[in-house]
């Protein structure tokens, strides 16, 4: 067991966890933040994507103890009170999700991209997002949303 001290979605968290506790399980079961999904358990599908100090990680192959002293952002951390993040709203408005199981991971990965590159090209988006599998949408609308989100957020256009 180990005591970890971290911040999750801006809030301080202090917990004792077994060394082998996965980050995805810590978030979902210890903190009841079930927005993060587990799709493959081997770190390839991206459904479990969360931001660790701003970097996208597969939480199903990360240990909770790795997050000690870090800032973790999950899908629950994007909205401010009742106002959805522009990315979330765009996913709703422009068909970015269907069943929703990959969606939290898609949105977190997209946010990480836009944080480092606010105007990514279609090719840059595809390369960045290839770690987030989706079976329902075929990716087209997700890519269009990320490509046009800056214009959408400024009220200038839609995908």
């Amino acid at each position, binding site marked *: 067991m180990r005591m970890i001290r971290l911040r999750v979605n801006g809030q301080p968290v202090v917990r004792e966890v077994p060394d082998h506790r996965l980050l995805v399980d810590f978030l979902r079961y210890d903190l009841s933040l079930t927005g993060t999904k587990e799709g493959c358990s081997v770190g390839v599908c991206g459904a479990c994507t969360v931001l660790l100090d701003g970097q996208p990680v597969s939480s199903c192959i990360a240990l909770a103890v790795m997050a000690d002293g870090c800032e973790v952002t999950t899908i629950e951390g994007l909205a401010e009170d009742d106002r959805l993040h522009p990315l979330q709203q765009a996913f709703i408005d422009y068909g970015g999700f269907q069943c929703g199981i990959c969606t939290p991971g898609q949105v977190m990965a997209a946010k990480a991209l836009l944080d480092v590159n606010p105007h990514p090209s279609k090719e840059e988006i595809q390369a960045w997002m290839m770690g987030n599998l989706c*079976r329902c949408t075929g*990716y087209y609308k997700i890519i269009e949303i990320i490509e046009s989100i800056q214009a959408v957020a400024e009220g200038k256009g839609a995908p």
Partner: protein
Amino acid sequence: MGRGIGMYDREPGAFGPSSATLSIDADARLTLLTGAADTGTGSYTVLQQIVAEELHVPLAAVTVVQGDTDTAAYEVGAGGSRFTHTAGQATLAATRELKQALVTLAAQRLGCAPAQVQLHQGRFVAAEGHSLDLATLMAWAVEQGTVPLTRTGSYLPTGPVAVTSFCAQVAEVEVDPETGQVQLRKLVTAHDVGTVINPLTHQGQIEGGVVQGIGQALTEHLLVQDGAVTTLHLGDYKLPTAMDIPELTTVLVETKAGPAPYAGKAVGELSNVAIPAAVANAVFAAVGVRLTDLPITAEKVYAGLRAKEGWK
């Protein structure tokens, strides 16, 4: 480079009963109860749209309560490209019955016969011109003790429907003659559709189906050895990623014919099936290698290319 065509047809699913129950409350809010759950296809919104369309109310006035088979009337659920057709018709039936009940109520309030009352642009209008809106009607109905007002609609298809839902697709591939590597560059998917009730979710179905077909055509393979599956997780079983999608063009040929409400057809299982055929035909057009088992891998194309050259 080569292009290949694939075609597919199936009729909209027409099996199994559907039911829906529609209620209106004192604040003129509508609640539709359905036993089926929206799995992400957007069926919630399609049913919501049907109610809103018939009763001239905004979408926000309609709530769909879904998936509770303990309380909902019998519903087979989503599957077999049936739902917009059958659940849509059940919803339409419930809505039209409720509308008739509201017309009767409005006629009482307006002091005339129900046959003289029409719902026009959101108002119940009597023949001689008096009218009232739904909110006013429901506030009055509370005092008459007739709230909530509820009607259930059912629909049982009587057999296969006599409409087509054709899909024709053209795949353009680039094949490396040295390695057999296949790149799917462009795809056109053309669909014979009835009235499209929700363009956004309809297109979502087409795009998702296309990429599922691409996975089947090019990358997905479940390996079985001595009766045991050896492809154990998504690291081994290759689903298409955001990098694997071609430039896609969708063509909708819309006809006002179909068994769903407003002459809608179906689209759920249409865009996925013919993709492997289109891709295989495109590979044949590009390099003359005819493959008949999936996925179409570089190894198989390579073997075909070398066989054509007479290599052993």
